[in-house]
């Protein structure tokens, strides 16, 4: 699976590199656009010392902790949300007759290495926050767990979005609001949002487990919404359940695929 992905991704990378100038421009642009996120956080903290009870460096920690898995998924799997385009173009039929998984082929299709800039930017912010925050070393094990959990959650949401397009061929915009919306939402401490929204992203679409809940543990904070302590450790469970659901939905999507009439 990894081999297949790497092969396809490398083929597209080579194709993208053929236009070196535009390639470099895209990388720079990508970094600039995402750098504005950080600029916004810095501007907020030039007027105040705390946002919903969190210091600047803690907010940057939350930002990096969600931004890194999001950017990784954006780079590696976000193309699975182009299902409806591939259905209409007929390229999905082609993928289905090849001896490798459709999901992998879709994820790697038109692999855009220029999105790697965003990964580096988020990693840098997270690295900075980890360096400057005075964290309890005994709690740091949660950081890799959190990143893995977040990656699985975002990948599963993208996959669910792709699977939905087998049924609703015209749904990509709705799907985008879940994936990119989720990416935006998790940039800030969830305590800046209303209680109902936070309930939704904890128990329905488990975005709270991307960074919020595990980060509360790493930062040794109580949840302003009062969830009990064990919830901090439920991330991997939530990610596994969501991944399972996404996998099932994907299989159903393929089974109910109707191709096109010509």
């Amino acid at each position, binding site marked *: 699976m990894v081999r*297949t992905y790497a*092969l*396809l991704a490398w*083929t597209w990378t080579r*194709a993208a590199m053929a236009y070196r100038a535009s390639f470099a421009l895209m990388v720079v642009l990508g970094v600039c656009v995402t750098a504005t996120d950080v600029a916004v956080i810095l501007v907020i903290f030039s007027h105040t010392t705390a946002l919903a009870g969190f210091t600047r460096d803690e907010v940057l920690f939350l930002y990096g902790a969600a931004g890194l898995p999001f950017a990784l998924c954006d780079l590696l799997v976000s193309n699975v949300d182009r299902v409806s385009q591939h259905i209409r173009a*007929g390229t999905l*039929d*082609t993928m*289905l*007759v*090849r*001896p*490798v*998984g459709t999901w992998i082929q879709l994820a790697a299709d038109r692999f855009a290495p220029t999105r790697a800039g965003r990964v580096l930017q988020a990693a840098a912010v997270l690295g900075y926050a980890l360096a400057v925050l005075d964290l309890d070393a005994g709690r740091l094990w949660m950081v890799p767990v959190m990143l893995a959990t977040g990656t699985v959650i975002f990948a599963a949401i993208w996959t669910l979005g792709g699977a939905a397009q087998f049924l609703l061929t015209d749904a990509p915009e709705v799907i985008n609001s879940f994936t990119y919306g989720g990416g935006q939402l998790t940039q800030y401490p969830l305590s800046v949002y209303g209680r109902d929204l936070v309930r939704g992203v904890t128990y329905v679409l488990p975005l709270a487990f991307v960074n919020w809940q595990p980060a509360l543990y790493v930062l040794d904070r109580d949840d302003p919404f009062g969830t009990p302590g064990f919830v901090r450790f439920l991330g991997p469970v939530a990610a596994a359940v969501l991944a399972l659901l996404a996998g099932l939905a994907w299989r159903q999507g393929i*089974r*109910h*695929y*109707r*191709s096109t009439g*010509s």
Partner: protein
Amino acid sequence: MIETERAGRAFKVRGSVVHAVRDLSFRIEPGEFVGCLGPNGAGKSTTIKMLCGILTPTSGRVRVAGLDPSRARTALARRIGVVFGQRTTLWWDLPLRDSFELVRLLYKVDRKLFAARLDELTEALDLGGFARTPVRQLSLGQRMRGDLAAALLHDPEVLVLDEPTIGLDVVSKAGIRSFLLRVNAERGTTVLLTTHDLGDVERLCRRVLLIDHGRLAFDGSVGDLMATAPGPATIEEVVTRLYTRGRAAPPPVEPV
């Protein structure tokens, strides 16, 4: 090699059900060369898509090379070659050669075998002149030859082709026909193709399946097909007669 048992595929279209294929039963033995005829909308492409696992049958059973295509799709892919005349299975933006290389990697074809096979196909299909051209710049005839080569690089046991001669000039058609005959004769590859070109049937197929309104309307040799006419007739006349026989009935549509 190919077996369908009362296979059917229905589509829900805005509140009604279209039975694209129904109760389709036939058997194709290894090494056969079979042509599938039928008027527009008869269900030929739908049948082909069920055979290669793209569409899951909504009723009945399909087996290809001993596998259930929709359940064992990726395993079947290694043993079957598929060509859609209407659209390419190659990578649109990549040069033909890179497409072949990707096929080699995805199908895990041994490098030596691949090189030998590619030489053979390049010669037989005369691909030498445009191996470096991106697929999107190829003419229809060139692209079709490229597609055929890509479908055969992994040396499949079965080759299914949906309208492989569509839009080709007489010379290109002749080239593709003799190539298909060669593949069938030399490698023993089972071939099933759909076509609207009766020349394909006359020159290639020992056996004809005729699908009409999603059902099997005829299954037999070309000789048997000709014998369905009351008197002497050309193949065009015979097929026209069979196609228009049930014309009074509109396509099968029923409310949900």
